[in-house]
């Protein structure tokens, strides 16, 4: 979709007065069957995932994989040298199954370390961050999103998107400053 001036349209967006108003509006937009839309707020709003029809984040699965990788890394890192490369008898204790607990601290630490890296990179990659810019930033009012602004945007590429009806839906739900956001 293009504007009369030839700009590509990214979305129609509206501002809401409060977190509660945004929450109610999100439920309406979800029930209207939209798929490519988003809400923006300065803090996570409790219950917004259900209001938007989003399930539980699957980031935890990535972290589990990270944790298992860390555990296996530690096993190889510790037992490779201790058993094969440089067997060392300390305190009169050769490398047998009885000394296995002495390897636990490092196994534990590396499991935590790899899980944490997995969590840290997963939330960025799954969110498509870091990125330099985003069409939403073309809207001057949007700078308040990190302060006290509550916004809802329905993207033009949503199959149900139509300029007039989408706009009236945002109006009905109490959206203010309804604006067409340009792609570039």
């Amino acid at each position, binding site marked *: 979709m293009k504007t009369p001036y030839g700009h590509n349209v990214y979305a129609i967006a509206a501002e809401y007065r*409060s*977190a*509660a108003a945004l*929450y109610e509006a*999100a439920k309406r937009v979800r029930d209207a069957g939209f798929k490519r839309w*988003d*809400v*923006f*707020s*300065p*803090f*996570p*709003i*409790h219950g*917004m*995932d259900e*209001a*938007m029809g*989003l399930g539980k*984040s699957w*980031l*935890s699965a990535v*972290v589990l994989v990270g944790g298992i990788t860390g555990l296996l890394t530690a096993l190889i890192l*510790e037992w490779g*040298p*201790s058993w094969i*490369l*440089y067997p*060392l008898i*300390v305190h009169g*204790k050769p490398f047998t199954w009885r000394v296995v607990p*002495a*390897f636990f*601290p*490092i196994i*534990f*630490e*590396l499991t*935590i*370390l790899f*899980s*944490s*890296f997995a*969590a*840290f990179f*997963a*939330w960025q990659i799954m*969110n498509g*961050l*870091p*990125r330099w*810019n*985003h069409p*939403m930033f073309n809207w001057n009012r*949007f*700078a308040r*999103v*990190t*302060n*006290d602004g509550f916004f809802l945007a329905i993207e033009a590429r949503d199959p149900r998107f139509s300029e007039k009806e989408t706009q009236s839906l945002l109006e009905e739900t109490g959206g203010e400053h309804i604006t067409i956001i340009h792609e570039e």
Partner: protein
Amino acid sequence: MDGATTAPEVIAEEASTSVERPLARVPLVLNRRSFAWVTERISAAVENRAPKWWWIAFACTVALAGIGLFCIGYQISTGVGTWGLNSPVGWAWDITNFVFWIGIGHAGTLISAILYLLRQKWRTSINRSAEAMTLFAVICAAIFPGIHVGRVWMAWYLAPLPNNYGIWPNFRSPLLWDVFAVSTYFTVSVLFWYTGLVPDLGTLRDRATSKVRKFLYGVFALGWRGSNRHWRHYEMAYLLLAGLSTPLVLSVHSVVSFDFATSILPTWHTTIFPPYFVAGAIFGGFAMVLTLMLPARALFKLHDIITLQHIDKMAKIILLTGSMVGYAYAMEFFIAWYSGNQYERFAFWNRILGPYWWYWWVGMLFCNCLSPQLFWNRWCRRNVFVVYFVCMCVNAGMWFERFIIIVGGLHRDFLPSSWGLFIPTWVDMWTFAGTFGIFLSLFLLFIRFLPLIAMSEVKIVLPEADPHYGATPGEHHPVAAGGKERT
């Protein structure tokens, strides 16, 4: 205050009219502040010109850090003999300082991770600066194991790297566990801290007026735009990082205590050490959090965000952990007697009557066991001067405790012929003072360039953040003007 609307009688009224909420909760942010007020007040500390006190404080701490770095350079170039180390006291202020600093870090992780899992919403006002304190304390701690080995250039031997001698570290040694525990702790703390910072860096980016600030905050904010699709994964990552940090922080000081507990020295060879060290770490760490937060609260006028309620709760944690530490001290004495081991018994008599007797009486008994008992009293928990006094006692007391454990254990061991004493040199003293300079300089830089309170998290605890705010009549009342809110 600042033209805000406040109310005393509303809470009483709320309690009487609201059926659903028989006990009115004391708000975490006072005087019904708005989201914009929170942004404004916290960002102002970063955006305004540096106040005069900041420059004076920074100049002093940087000078101190410089002296410390000089001492470290002198020690590295000359040798560990510049410290007062001798035989039998091969570990003294170096490892005392290491344990002291690493312990301080633990409070930050307790606040950011454990209190998060326990849904303690009051943590939002203090978690950011406590986490920053953790990082800076761990940086100070990491200096000492590095330089105490004497030949710093051989420190890479700690890492399990393939080398042409075919030598590998001993993975069954607590000293190597320590390397992994402390480096993991630092790394995970950085990741957790930075994850929490991203939305606030977005705020600073959107408020920035100069191009340089906009660029730098923009880069570090990673393009954050507050999207709920992002918050969903972000909150899961935050929860998991908290869940991972919780056992991690308990493990770090446990591993530090293994350095001692796995040896055979009287007073070191005890199974009580891991929980005793962890409780002591949280105890000392909370004292340091308050040491930094009380001045910051006054200087940046954050009384509505860091309220007396917060100070009260932190004082209660100091009381709890201080009493646990006191119990551990008593249990050590009991076991020394009950074990019937003459070396163990002697070591504890030596602790209270030996050459370092006053370290025990002043540091461990008065500072660590007795002074926090003031916090049984509500007035004491809510008087910032009393709180500050106790925190200073605890800061000192915890350092003395570690000194007594380390040097007290070493200086008189099994054979009287090998007894000795430890006398610190000027290098010992100025290196330790220098780490305070490094710690405080880093903290001052932090409050200048990063938001010292997590704005996005404080906003969540405001009543307006509730998606059902105003939905149920009688649940939230507008606030009448005049008067002061109950704290």
